[in-house]
Every structure is written in C-alpha cells, then in structure tokens.
C-alpha cells in the first residue's frame, strides 16, 4: 500500500525531505508510519510528543488506520499569524 508522507518545519529539516512515498502493510496506523521514519532518523523520536498528524488534510489521531492513496503529514507546533 502506497502512502504519501509530508514533513514541515523542523521535521522537514530533520528528515531532509519535504515529501516521501512509502510502501506500508495493510492495517498500518499513522503511529506505525512515524515509527518507521524514527528508525531511519532517530532524532525524530524525541519530537513525537510535539507533533500532530493529518490524514488527507484533516488532523487525525495516531491510531488512524491508513488507506491506500492517503496523504499523511507530520506537523510541528504551528506558528502562523
């Protein structure tokens, strides 16, 4: 199952990429997806508690089960305005 993943702000700098595409097993959650990137980029793990996720441009809990074609983004605390 193909999932598009976006990183912003500090998280983009840590992962070194704004956008990636990953192959996941069916039934994987947003939490599983974040863990996978934390394995590649261990510094990410320490940000877990100050990150929220979105699924198809709506804020989504970590337990959300991914569906094919989803666009998932990991968002640090927002600071617009």
């Amino acid at each position, binding site marked *: *199952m193909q999932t598009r993943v*976006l990183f*912003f*702000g*500090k998280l983009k700098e840590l992962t070194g990429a704004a956008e990636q595409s990953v192959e996941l097993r*069916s*039934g994987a*959650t947003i939490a599983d997806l974040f863990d996978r990137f934390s394995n590649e980029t261990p510094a990410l793990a320490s940000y877990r508690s*100050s990150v*929220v*996720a*979105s699924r198809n*441009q709506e*804020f*989504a*809990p*970590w*337990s*959300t*089960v*991914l*569906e*094919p074609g989803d666009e998932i*983004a990991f*968002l*640090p*605390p*927002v*600071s*617009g*305005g």
Partner: protein
Amino acid sequence: MSLSAHDDLITLGRDPIAPDALIRHVRQAHDGAVVTFDGCVRNHSHGRATFYLEYEAYESMALEKMREIAASLHTLFAIDSVAIAHRLGRLEIGETSVFIAVSAPHRKAAFEACRHAIDTLKKTVPIWKKEFFEDGAVWADGELPPVPAATPAVKPAS
C-alpha cells in the same frame, strides 16, 4: 483565492498583502462596524534583533483551515463578512504577515469575531514561521493543534 458561500475572501500567497482590497471586500452599506487585525513583522523577538522572517505552510490544508475559520465565525457571531490573508516566503520588518477584516452591523460582533479568527488561526492553521537573527535562525515556538479523538478503527476493505 477563494470565495465562500458568505462571500468571504480567503487568500494565502507570496505577494504582499493589500489591506485596502480586503477591507473594500467586507465593507457594505448595511455594516456599522469593520474591525481589522494587522499582524506585522516586529524588529525584535525574545530580546533579540530580528533580521527577517520566513513563513512556510502546508498550503492546501492551511487554505482549507482558514476557510473553516471564516465559516465558523458566521455561526458564532452576528457578522456580515470576513477576509483573511496570510503571506508566505520571506518577510521584512514592518511587513504584514496576516491581515483579517470583519464587517458587522454592530461593533461587538466585529471585535469578537476578528479576535477569534486570529486566535484560532494561530492554533490550527498549518503555517510555520522561521525567525532569522544575526547569529542564526530558529523555528518560532508554536501551538500544537487539537486533534479529534480516535474513532473505532474501521478495517479497510482492501
């Protein structure tokens, strides 16, 4: 640029914001009050001299969240219409990063809606500010948007 059902004007882009156009958009003959908020780039932050700022956004989601804010104002306050503009990219000292204009028959609703709009924008719209100082740059402290509670997981069909 986006016109909602209420004739609100919501924009997100790299060009300088033109407050006059936003005000003209919301200000009608049946309004008695227009309240505006102009968020400007300050020349200092946490006691340090700021050189400039850079804003980035999850653009499509940010625009949608800004539209949702405008729509919610109509349900919460007795207002006429709303314009919200946020700028992205590099901004110099004194430039406008965000501008909000709200028109209403009476001033109370215009004040409360404008205040609510900027407070909510700062909490829920995926935009990030990086502050550039003489000796480096930092991502500004921000707020973690509220996330809806988990609903019972539905196993996807595939």
